[in-house]
C-alpha cells in the first residue's frame, strides 16, 4: 500500500501551486467590489446629523477597519505575512471580532454539512446507480435516472424552501432554523448531539436529493462498460455467480467515480452555502452574504480562503486515496 514518492511529490507541488493561485485570487477579488466601507459608514453618520463627528473620524474608521491606501503590492505582501501568522484580520461588520474567531464558529457547521451530505449522496447515489446499471435499459433504470435527474434540475433553493415549508412549517416535524435547539448546550453531551443531528436532517436531505443525479448517472455509466468488459465476460463463462460478478464490476466502476467525488466537492460546497441560507444554518454561507453586503473584505477573504483550503485538502486526501486504490498510479502517476 505504499505510494510512490514521485506521485506524492507531484501532488504536493500541485497543491502548493493551486493554493497560491487561490491566495492571489482571494486577494484581488474583494478589491474589485466598488465602495469603501469606512466612507459608507462615515457618510451615513454625517448625513444623519452627526455634526459632532470630526472629519478625522473617517481616517479613524479606516484605520480601525484596516483599510489601507498603500500600493497594491505592499498590501499583498502584508496580506501574505499576516496569513503566515494566522492573522486573517478583523471583521468590519462584526467589529472588533477577528475573522478567525468568526470562522472558527461558522466553518465547522459548513464542513459538517458538506461532509455528511457528500458522503450520504455518494453512497446512496452509488447504490442507486449500481442498481440502475445492473438493470440497464429497463423501466427501473429509466425511472431511477429520470427521477434523480429531475431532482437535480429542479432549482435547489426552491426545493429547499418547499421542503422547509412542508416538513418544518406545515407538518412541524423539523425545526425551522439553526444548527441545534436553543435548550441544548453546546458540548459533548447526548442532548446536543441529538439536537445537531435532528437539525441537520432537512438541509442534508435537500442537498443529497439535489446531488443524487450526478452520482447515479456517473455510477450507472461506469457500471455498464464495467459489466461488459472481457474480464467479466470471462468470469461469466467460468461460471461465477451473478452476485460475485456484479461485485467485481462494481469495484471497477467505483474508482472513476471516486475522482468525481473529489472534483465535486467544490460543487457540494456551493450547494451547502446556498442551503445554509434557506435553513438558517449558521455556517459560512450566511456570513458570506452579510459580509458582501457590508463590504467586509477581511471576512470575505477569510471565508474564501478557508473554504478553498478545505476543498484543497479534501482533494489532496482523495488524490492520495485514489493513488492507494488504483495500482496504475504507481507507474503513470496520473
Amino acid at each position: 500500500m505504499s505510494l510512490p514518492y514521485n506521485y506524492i511529490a507531484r501532488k504536493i507541488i500541485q497543491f502548493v501551486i493551486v493554493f497560491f493561485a487561490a491566495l492571489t485570487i482571494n486577494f484581488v477579488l474583494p478589491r474589485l467590489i466598488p465602495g469603501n466601507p469606512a466612507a459608507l459608514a462615515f457618510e451615513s453618520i454625517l448625513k444623519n446629523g452627526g455634526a459632532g463627528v470630526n472629519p478625522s473620524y473617517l481616517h479613524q474608521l479606516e484605520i480601525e477597519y484596516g483599510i489601507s491606501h498603500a500600493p497594491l503590492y505592499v498590501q499583498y505582501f502584508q496580506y501574505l505575512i499576516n496569513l503566515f501568522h494566522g492573522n486573517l484580520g478583523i471583521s468590519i461588520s462584526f467589529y472588533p471580532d477577528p475573522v478567525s474567531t468568526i470562522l472558527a464558529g461558522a466553518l465547522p457547521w459548513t464542513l459538517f454539512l458538506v461532509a455528511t451530505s457528500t458522503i450520504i449522496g455518494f453512497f446512496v447515489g452509488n447504490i442507486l446507480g449500481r442498481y440502475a446499471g445492473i438493470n440497464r435499459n429497463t423501466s427501473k433504470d429509466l425511472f431511477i435516472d429520470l427521477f434523480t435527474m429531475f431532482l437535480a434540475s429542479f432549482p435547489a433553493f426552491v426545493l429547499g424552501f418547499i421542503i422547509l415549508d412542508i416538513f418544518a412549517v406545515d407538518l412541524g416535524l423539523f425545526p425551522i432554523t439553526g444548527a441545534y435547539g436553543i435548550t441544548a448546550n453546546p458540548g459533548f453531551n447526548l442532548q446536543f448531539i441529538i439536537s445537531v443531528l435532528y437539525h441537520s436532517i432537512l438541509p442534508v436531505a435537500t442537498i443529497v436529493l439535489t446531488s443524487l443525479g450526478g452520482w447515479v448517472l456517473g455510477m450507472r455509466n461506469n457500471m455498464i462498460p464495467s459489466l461488459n468488459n472481457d474480464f467479466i465476460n470471462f468470469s461469466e463463462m467460468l461460471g461465477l455467480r451473478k452476485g460475485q460478478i456484479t461485485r467485481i464490476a462494481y469495484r471497477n466502476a467505483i474508482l472513476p467515480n471516486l475522482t468525481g467525488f473529489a472534483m465535486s466537492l467544490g460543487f457540494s460546497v456551493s450547494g451547502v452555502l446556498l442551503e445554509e441560507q434557506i435553513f438558517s444554518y449558521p455556517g459560512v454561507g450566511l456570513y458570506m452574504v452579510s459580509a458582501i453586503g457590508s463590504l467586509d473584505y477581511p471576512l470575505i477573504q477569510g471565508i474564501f480562503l478557508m473554504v478553498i483550503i478545505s476543498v484543497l485538502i479534501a482533494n489532496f486526501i482523495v488524490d492520495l486515496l485514489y493513488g492507494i486504490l488504483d495500482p496504475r498510479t504507481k507507474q503513470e502517476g496520473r
Partner: protein
Amino acid sequence: MELLATQGISKIFTKRRGMFGETRTVALNDVNISINSKEIVGLVGASGSGKSTLARLLVFLYKPTSGKLLFEGNDITGYRSRQIRKYRQEVQMVFQDPYASLDPNHNVAWHVRRPLITSGYSGNIEERVDQVLEMVTLSPPEYFKNKYPHQLSGGQRQRVYLARALAVEPKILIADEPVSMLDVSVRIEILELISKLREELGISIIYITHDVNTVSLVTDRVYVMHSGMVVEHGNTDDVISNPTHKYTRELIEAAPNPYKRI
C-alpha cells in the same frame, strides 16, 4: 549520390523521477547510416533496438542528443520549424498501424488532398489526387475517394496512406514496419508496390522492420541494429547469407521461414 545521412547520432531519453532524480535511457548510440538516391535501405532489429527512434529522428519528431543529420550534403541538425516543414516535404513517413494513421473523421480524398494544399501544389488538385490514387493501385479513384477509413481493408488503408505520403513527391520515404499489421497475403502486394514506386518515381526508401524475410525481398542494403547501435551493415544479400555479427545470425535463425510454415 548520398541523399540523407547521419553522423554519430545519439539519443538519450531522460525521465524525471521525483523532484531531483532522473533516469537516462540510451536509445541510439553513435549511429551512422546513409541512403543514396533511388535506393531501398533496410533497418532491421528486434523491438527496442532503436530503429523506430531513428526513424522519428529523421523526420524531426525527436531531436538528437548529439551527432549530425545531413541532407543532400547540408547539415540540417539545427533546423527550425519553417525549415523543418519544408524538409518534411522531401522526407515522408509511413506508419506501422494503418488503423491508427488515418483520421476516422475524414475520407480518402481529404487525406490525399491535404498535403497537396499545405505544400501549395500548383496544378489541379483533384486530378493529382486521382493520379496518386491510381499510382497506389486504388482504382478507380472515384470509387475510393469518398470512402472513410473504416470502410477500407487494412491493405487499402496502407495504400491510401502511401498515396498521402507520395502526393507531395518526396525524395525519401521512411516506411516504419508498413506491413507488420497486415495479413500475410497483402504484405507481398504492398512490398511489391513499394518496389514499383521506387522504379517509377525514383525515390529512396528506408524500410524498417524486424522481419528478416521481407528485408531480403525489397532492400538493396541493410543496417542491423541492436541496443541502439548499428552492429552490421552491407548489401542485403551479403548480410543475410553471410552474417558476421552474432546478433545478426540470431535474428536470421529466429525468423520464421514462410515456406516451411504453411
